[in-house]
């Protein structure tokens, strides 16, 4: 069933795209992932969508010899919550800081609400910023922290009190306005940082690793809270994270960065099912890289010429000997080497063709022991081809025995 939904989605997005929005997003994704294709005028592209709120055009930034941002272009729509996802050092925080005006780009344009803001100082860009460490002022109470931006603007005291108290309530900290930041828990501090960023009524909210400083248990709860609150406030937001689960769960749109450039941009589902680039394929999901995929049954047409491919657990189904098997010819013999209980299912490591693959088996099915002989069926894989990745279906599933791209 996993393989069914995967292939269905490919057909949907790759061959019969529905709706103009999807086309735009896909175009842009292609732009970012294919260096050659980037000349297809992002300006025209942006003009085509009236919903674009934030846009980066060919932004580059170097620190000495280090290229922190290398020709970065992407757009974020109004009211959306976008996640900049990438490994550490991939340049995602630099992008956020350039957007905020905390760094100046060496070249390229930054547009907010259709206006080039390159020369507009950070404080006039109408943004709220939540720092990774929150940067709450230690010697100010929660109230004074939130009120800071308003007090700077010489807002009337009564209005400040009204607004701040409203924000304190909004983020669920009623009654804690008189506390100092150090008297709060990590989660509460994040809420203060969030309220402080919203106090000046920005149109764009930027969050740098908003959940990094919070322990795992509270993090999950805060993610849901933040997503819900951003939707309620209706503010366009961009956050930085290195945690793909976080990005997939929270964001409407994910922008994947690698070594200073944007690898891929799109909805979480699109990116997950259709990674397109070699990097993204090996970054999202739970990838296992295998050598020489042509050795596997059902993929013989790839030949014995070596190469690499990426498998995910959901591409593989495992059956005990004796259980009914649909595609007998293309099933492989495998031995279970390791087994881990993961709550809802068992994660098994099975050896096939001298390669160790990871596969999940629900606990509702008959258990499989370590050392047991099993049959596995690989429905599809991502064949890595230079910078790109293409989906290859198992021969048994594909009516055309050829490789097709998405």
């Amino acid at each position, binding site marked *: 069933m996993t393989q069914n939904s995967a292939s269905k989605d490919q057909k949907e997005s790759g061959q019969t795209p529905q709706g103009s929005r999807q086309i735009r997003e896909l175009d842009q994704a292609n732009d970012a992932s294919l260096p050659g294709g980037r000349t297809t005028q992002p300006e025209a592209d942006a003009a085509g969508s009236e919903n674009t709120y934030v846009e980066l055009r060919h932004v580059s930034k170097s620190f000495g010899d280090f290229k922190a941002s290398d020709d970065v272009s992407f757009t974020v729509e109004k009211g959306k919550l976008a996640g900049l996802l990438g490994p550490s050092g991939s340049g995602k925080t630099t992008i956020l800081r350039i957007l*905020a*005006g*905390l760094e100046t780009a060496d070249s390229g344009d930054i547009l907010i609400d259709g206006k080039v803001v390159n020369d507009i100082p*950070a*404080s*006039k860009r109408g*943004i*709220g*910023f939540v*720092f990774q*460490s929150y*940067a709450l*002022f*230690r*010697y*100010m109470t929660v109230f004074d922290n939130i009120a*800071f*931006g308003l007090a*700077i*603007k010489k807002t009337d005291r009564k209005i400040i009190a009204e607004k701040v108290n409203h924000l304190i309530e909004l983020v669920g900290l009623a009654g804690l306005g008189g506390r*100092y930041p*150090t*008297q709060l828990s990590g989660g509460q501090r994040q809420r203060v940082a969030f309220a*402080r960023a919203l*106090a*000046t009524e920005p149109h764009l909210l930027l969050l740098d690793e908003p959940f990094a400083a919070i322990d795992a248990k509270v993090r999950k709860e805060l993610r849901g809270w933040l997503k819900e609150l951003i939707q309620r406030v209706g503010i366009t937001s961009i956050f930085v994270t290195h945690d793909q689960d976080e990005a997939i769960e929270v964001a409407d749109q994910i922008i994947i960065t690698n070594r200073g450039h944007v690898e891929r941009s799109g909805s979480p589902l699109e990116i997950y099912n259709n990674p397109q680039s070699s990097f993204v394929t090996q970054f999202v999901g739970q990838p296992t890289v295998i050598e020489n995929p042509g050795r596997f049954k059902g993929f013989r047409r790839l030949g014995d010429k070596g190469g690499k491919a990426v498998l995910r657990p959901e591409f593989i189904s495992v059956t005990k000997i004796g259980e009914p098997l649909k595609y007998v010819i293309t099933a492989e013999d495998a031995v279970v080497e390791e087994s881990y209980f993961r709550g809802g299912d068992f994660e098994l490591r099975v050896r096939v063709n001298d390669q160790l693959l990871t596969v999940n088996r629900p606990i509702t099915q008959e258990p499989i022991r370590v050392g047991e002989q099993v049959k596995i069926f690989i429905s599809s894989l991502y064949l890595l081809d230079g910078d790109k990745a293409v989906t290859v279906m198992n021969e048994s599933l594909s009516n055309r025995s050829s490789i097709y791209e998405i």
Partner: protein
Amino acid sequence: MARKKTKSVIPGFGISFGVSVSILSLIVIIPLCSLVIYSSQLTLEQFFEIITRPRVLASYKVSLATSFIASVINAVMGLVMAWVLVRYEFPGKRILDGMIELPFALPTAVAGISLAHLTVPNGPVGAVFSGLGIDIAYTWVGITVAMTFIGIPFVVRSIQPVLENVEGEYEEAAYLMGAGRLQTFFRVVLPEIRPALIAGFTMAFARCLGEYGSVVFIAGNKPYETEIAPLMIMSELQEFDYPAATSVALTMLLMAFVILFVNAVLQSRASAIVSGIR
């Protein structure tokens, strides 16, 4: 007995505790106690009579006023110097940084005669100022100059490490919310370094109050005018007037402790905010 209390597997508590307490007793505790014992031989009336003598009162006034002014100068200049040494890169920075401790390293008497000789009316610096009608040597100004000299390292060295640890993100956050440089400094950075500034100020103040070597040469030591409290004690000692010397010394110690106590209260308030204890 001591061993039972420590519950440590590390050996050597007995000897290390013993050695440190005996040296401490000989050098610090017994001599300080003898001050208390000796002063207990004085009656309260005697004590008050001595410490309210006009000449003694005048010396407190001189000491407190000049120490305070010198410490304020050091607080302001210390802040500027710490800021320069932490925030800016410029040629010669390491030399400036290394120079700050000179008042610790240079014997106070040397500093004293040098400052005095420079600022007497016919000295190289004094000549310039007396042309403007300002006398430095043998006035309050001179005392303040000498005290400023010895107080330099306290504020700088107290603020420097704290300023180094003030996160850039604080200033960025303030900047993004529209605060200007001065607003950011006074509202965000200054509160962070204020405890260190107060601590440095207090240490400088306490040190200046007790300072003798660098001040006596430049002070001129005119009774009622440029006589500092430590000099008062000195001259009473030279007249073998031990009751008077002891009384003045006790008052000075009291002042020093009050200053340090105020500092301790302020510091504990600041650290309560930072550590989250109410």
